């Protein structure tokens, strides 16, 4: 893999490297890899990763390229016939393309992808060079993702393969800085592949809101991004509003916002359920001392549970009433944003509920 990168940069020399590589008989090698017991495969994978890591950190590529062939030439010496056949083939451009593809395939198989997945990955976006596919996937593997989630993510969002590698590398390193590596990245990537495609300033916008406006700690931000990846797709202003609603309107503290994955829920769901409970008299915003007359229901019993369970256990109300409430509430919110109309303008509306005005004698 590293060799091929080298190939892209130093054309003349690469042929030397490439022909060295030829002796590896990639196809044969692939067979070997597949027949190798899993433990050894993993070791192979690990050593590859190690080398990749070295390569990506800017280690000497040449050194890497030398290590590989020597190691595997021993293994494939017995396939000399096939080698000779290959050496002849590699002279033509078509052959070169095929060869490159073979290399990529082996590399992917080495990483632990299945045959089927390898084929799918390489045919997902035909206009993207196979090398680029490999580079991108390698980057994800380096970030600590396992092959299966990588496959799923790329399958879901093939446009990821089109990203320029420099951008991908920059983004990877940024994500590592944010604490999103390994398992954490998997969830985020599956929900939100935009985490690789979105402009840096957009991520900065979200992270900025979380850090500077909402005042979450770095660890809290990591956890939020990991567990509520959709925040990345939100408008920063709306995200801030959601937090303020939690903190000021509902009296939920930072730690609880993070712990309950509060930011994962839509503002509509939050407001509907909260205001419904509040008007029922079942939720009270804590006073300055953080106290309420009656303990509030747990946040998970408000937000996380299904609507049916919310109604049955937390609100103790009916679906029909909640439906009406939602409609009325939506209308209230809509009219709040329009200019408020004073009651007196509703000419024919009966104000039977008028105040008794004492002292207005004849």
């Amino acid at each position, binding site marked *: 893999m590293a060799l091929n990168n080298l190939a892209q940069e130093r054309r003349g020399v690469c042929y030397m490297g490439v022909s060295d590589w030829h002796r590896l008989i990639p196809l044969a090698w692939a067979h070997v890899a597949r027949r190798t017991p899993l433990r050894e495969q993993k070791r192979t994978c690990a050593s590859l990763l190690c080398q990749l890591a070295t390569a990506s950190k800017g280690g000497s590529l040449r050194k890497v390229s030398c290590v590989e062939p020597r190691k595997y030439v021993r293994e494939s010496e017995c396939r000399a016939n096939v080698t000779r056949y290959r050496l002849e083939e590699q002279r033509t451009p078509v052959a070169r393309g095929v060869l490159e593809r073979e290399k990529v395939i082996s590399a992917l198989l080495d990483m632990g992808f299945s045959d089927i997945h390898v084929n799918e990955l390489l045919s997902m976006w035909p206009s993207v060079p196979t090398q680029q596919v490999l580079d991108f996937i390698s980057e994800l593997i380096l970030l600590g993702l396992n092959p299966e989630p990588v496959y799923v993510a790329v399958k879901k969002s093939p446009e990821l393969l089109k990203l320029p590698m420099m951008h991908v590398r920059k983004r990877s390193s940024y994500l590592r800085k944010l604490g999103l590596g390994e398992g954490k990245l998997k969830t985020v990537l599956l929900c939100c592949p935009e985490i690789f495609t979105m402009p840096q300033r957009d991520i900065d916008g979200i992270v900025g809101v979380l850090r500077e406006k909402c005042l979450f700690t770095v660890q809290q931000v990591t956890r939020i991004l990991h567990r509520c990846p959709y925040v990345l797709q939100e408008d920063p202003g709306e995200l801030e509003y959601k937090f303020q609603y939690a903190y000021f309107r509902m009296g939920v503290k930072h730690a609880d916002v993070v712990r309950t994955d509060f930011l994962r829920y839509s503002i509509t769901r939050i407001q509907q359920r909260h205001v*419904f409970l509040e*008007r*029922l*008299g*079942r939720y009270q915003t804590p006073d300055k001392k953080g106290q309420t007359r009656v303990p509030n229901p747990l946040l998970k019993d408000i937000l996380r549970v299904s609507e049916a369970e919310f109604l049955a256990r937390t609100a*103790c*109300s009916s679906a*029909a*009433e909640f*439906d*009406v*409430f939602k*409609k*009325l*509430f939506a*209308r*209230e919110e809509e009219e709040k944003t329009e200019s408020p109309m004073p*009651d007196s303008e*509703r*000419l*024919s*509306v*009966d*104000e*039977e*509920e*008028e*105040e*008794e*005005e*004492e002292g*207005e*004698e*004849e």
Partner: protein
Amino acid sequence: AATEPKFPATQLALQNFDMTYSIQFGDLWPSIRVSLLSEQKYGALVNNFAAWDLVSGKLEKLSARDFVNDAICHGEVEAESGQTTTPSLASGSCSPNLRCFTFPRGDVSRFPPARLGSLGVMDYYLMDAASLLPVLALGLQPGDTVLDLCAAPGGKTLALLQTGCCRNLAANDLSTSRTGRLQKVLHSYVPQDIRDGNRVRVTSWDGRKWGELEGDTYDRVLVDVPCTTDRHSLREEENNIFQRSRKKERQMLPMLQMQLLAAGLLATKPGGHVVYSTCSLSHLQNEYVVQGTIEFLANQYSIKVQVEDLTHFRKLFMDTFSFFPSCQVGELVIPNLLANFGPMYFCKMWRLT
């Protein structure tokens, strides 16, 4: 001098209600509470002095239904199938000619504002549909002399006129500014020839004096007393009776209400009927006042007053309104999100002697 801490009267009202009504209504209170705090539902009272059939048609097109008509039909069907044991309390005892449209249960549509019709009067009057029930319960009959003791701002007064039964209607309210509003309503809805002459009289006197002023005079009396106007007090800050400065006044309300009801009963002919109504949920302003006044009149004036059972009446309107099942006397419409009308308490009485 230290200033009082800023605490909105609407909040004080809510606190007061949470304390009293959670006990009075128990498990029902949360659903009443959420309804009081959400937009109320209106009914469109058709103006019989306009082209009422066209107006009815227009309202039907909006998918609203005349709940009065529905209730009466419902009652007639039951009477025919022999389900009612008291035919005297059947549809005949409801005040006639009242047409009021509402949207079905769960439907939150709003009526368009009322408009001036071709006959120079407005086509319908938007009001809390529950406000019509005291007028329906009063059971006007053609040729009745009617007194509306606390008439402003005029919705129920207008409904009384819509029945076409009033030989004479006396409409009174203590407050001159409020009777001003009442006059405006009458001008917009009722043709001049009916307003003129002795047919409709508007006054701004003290209702408590009516026993002396016009004792034993009226066939039907409506006493729709000033109260804590529960729904209104939760929304409007201005002039709110839960302001700290009006605490004494608020505490004196049941007394005032009893005096007004007593006056209304005294102004009724023996054999005549009175309906007492409030727009409060409070037991102290409702049943307590009725029972207290009846007892007072029995003791002080030897006047016998009997409460009339409205169970059958309530059943007619059960599909449109939510009623509280446990009133000792009278009926109480409680707000519910599916039928966000009320609160409206009403009790019908018969002056026997």
